[in-house]
């Protein structure tokens, strides 16, 4: 931290930039729906001036911040409001400890993996009203929260088996890869346990484009722990991921992921929220791509196959908060615009309300649902039964609020390429062979 810019980019110090204009207050998604949250300006830069590093945390209203990050986006002055809030939550956890519920919600990776063999049972449980009611009473996990369904197999398991079928064991080391024809795929926990088909489709699209795909045994990105204030655990996972990814990043091998939120953790949160400003973390951040962003990039450099089949549909698209935070525009819209016949309309909604694990919490469920109303209105008014969106938890939330089917934009890409699941499981040719 020796140059000027750095100082005022250091999250807590960005409170210096706040001129109190209230733009963040006006656009906060949570504050209008509850008296318990004093708004982003107050819990952010304002309270920050009164927070003493190292001293016990004295404020708790920041717990109602959902972390959607719209405040940081709309701030014309460069205050990292949401990031300040998330760090304040971590200070709370440091002082008061973490609730069992929040600890549990942060361990997406573990319950996703451990639950897989028991998928039918668990899916019955999460679909059962009585059990959900009991869970809400005992565990304060909302009975209305859009819990995912276990797929019954993991993406990772599928990948390892598939590689084994092709006689490949372990992942190719960075030095052995051709940077121009290799990508690393980061699947994330939700793809692993609940939506492995998204990962399979992503692999198929990448292979269709001539890339050799590497899937290192990465950990949870840490985001669910981070947003519940458990920075210690989040940093632990973050460091493991960085250690895995750094050699690939240093070789210029793109790290691509379909979970826009995990990718934002790697690109931005490790640095600005978890305060990991070391060179390795920065190198990884610079090499990470959101999946659709990567396709858009391929198009820019003339490497995207635009031989798309026609899809005659008009579909609403929701840009997740975490995707907006990338600062890359709406790559899904830019790429899907290349598919003939397909018309996309961006829903005018700042947030769907789920915010990772926020909308799962009993005391926040009503807020979460209220935040998502603009999406409900849009979908109803347009009579849509499908919504496109780049992150898993948002898709579950939107599905639960609107009843519409939700999917990642990569599904449309695969459809436009005419890729079928059977081929995805058993690729017709070895990439590069």
């Amino acid at each position, binding site marked *: 931290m020796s*140059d000027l810019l750095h100082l005022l980019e250091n999250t807590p110090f960005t409170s210096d930039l706040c001129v109190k204009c209230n733009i963040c207050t006006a656009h906060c998604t949570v504050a209008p729906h509850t*008296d318990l949250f004093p708004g982003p300006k107050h819990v952010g830069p304002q309270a920050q001036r009164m927070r003493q590093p190292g001293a016990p945390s004295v404020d708790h209203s920041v717990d109602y911040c959902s972390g959607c990050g719209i405040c940081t986006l709309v701030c014309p002055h460069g205050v990292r409001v949401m990031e300040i809030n998330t760090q304040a939550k971590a200070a709370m956890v440091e002082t008061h400890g973490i609730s069992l519920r929040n600890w549990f919600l942060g361990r997406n990776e573990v319950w996703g993996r451990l639950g897989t063999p028991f998928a039918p049972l668990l899916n019955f449980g999460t679909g059962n009203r009585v059990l959900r009611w009991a869970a809400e009473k005992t565990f304060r996990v909302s009975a209305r929260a859009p819990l995912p369904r276990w797929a019954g197999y993991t993406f990772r398991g599928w990948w390892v088996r598939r590689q084994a079928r092709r006689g490949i064991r372990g992942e190719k080391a960075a030095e052995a890869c051709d940077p121009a024809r290799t990508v690393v795929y980061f699947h994330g926990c939700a793809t692993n346990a609940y939506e492995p088909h998204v990962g399979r489709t992503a692999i198929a699209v990448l292979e269709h484009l001539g890339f050799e795909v590497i899937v290192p045994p990465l950990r949870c990105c840490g985001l669910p722990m981070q947003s519940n204030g458990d920075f210690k655990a989040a940093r632990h996972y973050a460091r493991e991921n960085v250690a895995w990814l750094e050699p690939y990043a240093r070789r210029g091998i793109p790290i691509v992921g379909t979970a826009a939120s995990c990718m934002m953790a790697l690109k931005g949160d490790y640095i600005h929220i978890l305060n990991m400003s070391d060179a390795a973390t920065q190198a990884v951040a610079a090499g990470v791509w959101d999946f659709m962003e990567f396709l858009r990039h391929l198009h820019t450099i003339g490497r995207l196959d635009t031989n798309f089949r026609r899809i005659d549909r008009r579909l609403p698209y929701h840009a997740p908060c975490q995707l907006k935070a990338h600062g890359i*525009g709406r790559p899904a819209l830019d790429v899907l615009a290349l598919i003939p016949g397909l018309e996309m309309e961006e829903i005018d909604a700042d947030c769907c309300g789920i915010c990772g694990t926020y909308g799962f919490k009993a005391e926040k469920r009503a807020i979460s649902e209220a935040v998502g109303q603009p999406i409900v209105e849009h979908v109803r008014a347009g009579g849509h039964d499908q919504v496109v969106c780049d992150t898993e938890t948002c898709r579950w939330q939107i599905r639960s609020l609107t009843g519409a089917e939700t999917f990642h934009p990569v599904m449309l890409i695969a459809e436009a390429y005419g890729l079928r699941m059977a081929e995805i499981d058993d690729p017709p040719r070895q990439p590069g062979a």
Partner: protein
Amino acid sequence: MANLACDVLVIGGGATGVCAAYDLARRGLQVILADRNDLSTGTSGRFHGLLHSGGRYAVRDPESARECIAENRILRRIAPGIVEDTGGVFVAAPQDPPDYADQWVTACAAAGIETEEIAIPALRRREPALRPDLVRAFRVPDGSVDGFDLGHAFSRAAESYGARFLLYHRVTALAYTTDGMRATLNSADGTAVVVEARWVLNAGGPWAGEIAALAGHDLRVRWSRGVMIAMNIRWVNTVVNRLRPPDDGDIVVPVGTVSVIGTTSVAASSPDDNTIEPWEVSKMLDEGEALIAGFRTARALRAWSGVRPLYEPPGAAEEGADGRGLKRTFSVVRHGPGFTSVLGGKLTTARLMAEKAADDVCAGLGVDAPCTTAAEPLPAGTERRYHTLGHRLALLESGKMPGALICECEMITRPQLEEAIAAYDHVPALDDLRRDLRLGMGPCQGGFCAVRAAGILRQARDLPASEAVEALRVFVAERFKGGRPLLWGQHLRQFLLDEMIYRRILGLDACGDSRPAASLSLPPWATDETPIPAAAGQRVVVIGAGLAGLAAAVHAVQAGARVRVLAAGLGRLILTPGWFALGTFAAHPGVEAFRRWAAGQDLIRLAEGGRLPSLLGIPRTVDLAPEGLAAGAIDGATPVLIVGFAGWRDFDAALCSGMLAAAGVSCRAVSIDLPPRHEGWDLSPTELAHRFDDPAFRAEVAQRVRARLNGEARVGFPAVLGLHDPRVRAEMAAWIGVPVFEVPTLTPSVPGTRLYNTLKRWLLRQGAQVQVGHPVTRLIVEGDRVTGVAVASAGRETIFPGDAFILATGGLYGGGLLSDDRGHVWEPIAGLAVMAGDDRTAWFRDTLLDPAGHPVHTFGLRVDEALRPLNETGHPVCANLTVAGHALGGFSPLAGGYDEGLDLASAYAAVRAALQA
């Protein structure tokens, strides 16, 4: 003329005086303390805030060092509530003399000051703002002490032993009598008081010489002035000293919510010399930079200077003009029987100074009670405040500080203000409340809290609205005086925001919003009537999401272009009253086009303006306004009811109605409770507006208002009648039975937010992309065309391509221009040519609300007749890049009364020109 008698009259209510009053009273003497002002308004209120460990003096002035460390320990023991135990460090920068450290360590040891070396990485884990290239660091037991708190604590302690305080009483004459002295005091209201005292103790600080002279004595005081700057946040939580022989700007002290850097040492011409020279400000920033990289770009909040009294004993040798060489210990001087002076020293050693002075007084009076102030803590209950940074936040969060939060920056609530006001027997100035509570001392410098506090003052003292508004004006003027030496960078943006609030939302400049700008000679683009060319398929990139940027996007979409708006954040739209000042641009086709567009948008339909009430009920002349605001046009004939919400801080109905009445409107105010009674955190205007979107809520409000109607023909509400639902106002009017209008509130402005939301939604529906949080950092230029812009995305930059580009990044407020303390103004994206003055002291006129505006308002980009920005050699930078809105130089939209006119007209012309290129 009143006559009082006492044993000892202490003159001066600074640290030394209050400690002396306490000491003497404890020894059983009858004490009166007189100060010409409030307590701690002399040097003790204008000092650096450091509870010295003595390390600073260890090498050169060991006696001072020993006094400091001893008193430091005593003060922590007897008055822990006024000391924040920050600890301190001495750090050596690479440029500091390398051999000084060891010499200093030895000297500290000799003076009894414990030091402990700490590795730089370990130090930086605690203090991440410090430079990594520091060479050595040592911990010392420094602390931070608040002069006002010290004054309060010791004066209350003295009172508990029977001392009396005559504040706002200036001693104007002193004469020896047979058994002591007679002092004549003049009070602030002009009455005189005579005090017969057996002894007088002169604790007049830098004024001690003048006081001694009243009795004919020659007390030679040299004055040394020092400047300090409070930085907006606590860059460090430990006192940081430079490890070098004492010099300018080598200490940073965390004090309350800020960190203070100081000081200079300049020979002053009088004890009242409070000048702050620009070089002193720059010097402080330079020195700060040596400790904290980036310090210069950080925000300086207030600057002040104080005058040290350095006692020059008769025959003292010249010790260098700056006085830094004169010793910093103190002196007690017995002038004659009945008269002693004490001066010099430090706030840290005030107790010791008082002890020695009191010893002398007691010896003179034949009293042999010993000093006991060092042995026992201050009496219970005399210390009210507690020094942890998070104290107010903790109280607020725990519900122990209920009521509306009025000063958000420093966290002061309505009940606290009411209590502070009640403590005065006269009507206090808002500035008194500032000193009592830190009102308006935070980053916004009163922009939000001053008007709220004025409303509370009006209510508490039942003042006419005009008097409360006058108090507000005075406060605004004073805050500007304090901020003016520091107006560059982010703090300049703050004052530009505050100025917009004062002039436009509050209407304090009394010159109306829209005025024909007589002096403005219109450039060709402003009168050109040619339409925007068709642009099927062209990719237009608009940089900036203020009114100019979004209007440009609308025009471009209407022309058939594919539009992408990229913005670092949102623009000023929601910081305005919500109405349109068009001025000279009223007839421009861009304005016409925008009106046609707006006519199709239910939520923001526009109507002709008129004279509309500001938040304070001051009439503003407005060209065009959303229907809700326009319905408030002042006609003088119909009686009006202004409705406020009990406890809601962002609109004061009585102030508004009072000022409207003064403008000739028959007017009355009522305050109604919000249903259900609101107990949580304060609602912002947009949050409250959101509640009005709920039909049940607004029906309930309407019913309550209807019950209070008493023949009024119109009802005015703060502008919170619905955020998304366009039917709210009409429905409420139907329920109440008379027309309803809206009056602007503090920001975020609901009419402005409605306008932004409507623009954005419309653009998305048309397939345009609107992306905020996307700061553009540079242009991609090929030949004479821009082909794309780079955005600082997470991880790396992203290039967005396009065919035509509109730069609508705003001016110095919007962030389209940046500025620094050296008077440098620049355009950060492409280094475009800027029209600006480089003498920072001439950027503003003397008063903030000067009707002519300020030179700084005219700073902006230099463009040609087609709005293309020029480079330093006067040539257009690129054919397909044009500028719109407040980024344009040479205009003075705020004072000129054409804020929105400029945005709308230039947006249209900029799109036209960029598409033609």
